[in-house]
């Protein structure tokens, strides 16, 4: 898969789980998702399960600190570096 395609799919997944389409806007991709109440720990776990399903990337619930995965850009980086 091309990088851009993966990126779009990951962002779609974040939007799908949170129900917030604003995450797709380029200017929002460094916003702290937990502070903006887009994600909470429950949404995050739902997200990790889907990531394993769709991308075959397995990330354990306590593997990453929240600061390592709290923006769209960081999420994309964490997943793509494991693919």
């Amino acid at each position, binding site marked *: 898969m091309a990088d851009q395609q993966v990126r779009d799919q990951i962002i779609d997944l974040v939007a799908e789980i949170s129900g917030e389409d604003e995450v797709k806007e380029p200017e929002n991709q460094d916003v702290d998702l937990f502070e903006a109440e887009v994600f909470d720990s*429950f949404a995050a*776990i*739902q997200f990790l399960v889907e990531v394993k399903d769709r991308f075959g990337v397995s990330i354990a619930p306590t593997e990453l600190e929240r600061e390592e995965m709290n923006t769209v850009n960081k999420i994309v980086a964490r997943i793509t570096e494991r693919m």
Partner: protein
Amino acid sequence: MDFYTEPAFFMLLLPIVGIAVVLGLAQKPLARYGFAVSVAMLVLLFSRSLASLAFLGCYLLLSCLLMRWVRHLFASKAPHAVGWYRVALALQIAPLAVYKVGVVFDPSFLGFLGISYITFKAVQVLIETRDGLIEHLSVFEYLYFLIFFPTFTSGPIMRSRKFAADIDKPLSRDAYLERLYRGAGFFILGAVYKFVFSAMTAWLMWFAPSVIGTSTAGSFVLTQVVYALCYGLNLFFDFAGYSHMAVGVGMALGIEVPRNFRAPFLAVSIKDFWNRWHITLSWWLRDFVFMRFSAAAFEHRWFKSPVAVACVGFILNMTLMGAWHGLTIPYLVYGLFHGVLLALCELMERKWGFYKRNHKKRWFKVCSWAVTMVAVFFSLALFSGQVFNPVLV
């Protein structure tokens, strides 16, 4: 000798912390020293019950064996590794489970002070070893993590990876000083909580009912409310006081101990409350029970909607929390009550349009805070058993 209550403990703390400060300022590693004083302090803690000390020794041995076994299972990709891992997990939890059931029938059932907390730490290590997150934890590091005396009896519950990173990385003089100053602040605040405010509220718990009385319906209700308020505040000042002091002593030994309380009576929702009250317990349960349950529920599609997963997860999680406090009606009802509240909170956040439109407004937060506090103090009256046995004078 009891920790954080007896004068003897504080007398010993002076030279222990004094030597730690000298070592820390000289930028010497503190781990071996911390380990040695932890061993000595635990021997003193259990000086009145050698059976408990022996039990602790066996528990430590068991924990080390299980840790090495689980690591070996997954490192060597052994057949049926997951099944054996579950056996290891059951063995790790068994002493606590047997103890909790045992004390229901016989209050003097053999256990050791701190068994509840040490079990959390050991289980975290097994789970994260299975997840492949812990690759280099030596037996020394593991034992030191388990017996670290400042937090041994009642937390805060530390995480092994942070702990090991703290021992492995020697602190510069400035970094140690900075940690020491913060620790001193925690310790002083904790001492004031415990020896001033906890003592005051304990006195009020006894004094207020005796003044108000319970002879009329009105005075009965007022006494219950005042007592519940005093009890909640007393529990907070006592436990937060202890926790803050433990953080302070831990910091002097060079370990960044996580804080356990953050102004819980300012919480504007029950979820907010659990991010402020007994934080290390609630986050441990969130990470190792709630999240694992949720992940399994999504993977195996146990429920149709994510909200259902969250609600069932919360109720399971908090009922387990209640059971961990003790297998008695007040504790179990306390846990169940919080599980239901969290589930309702989740439903409200996801389904209630009015909430979505207004929850960031000031008036909503004020109302939400008031409702949360009523629920919190009521839950603590469940916890204390007051709801089941009202105060009578």
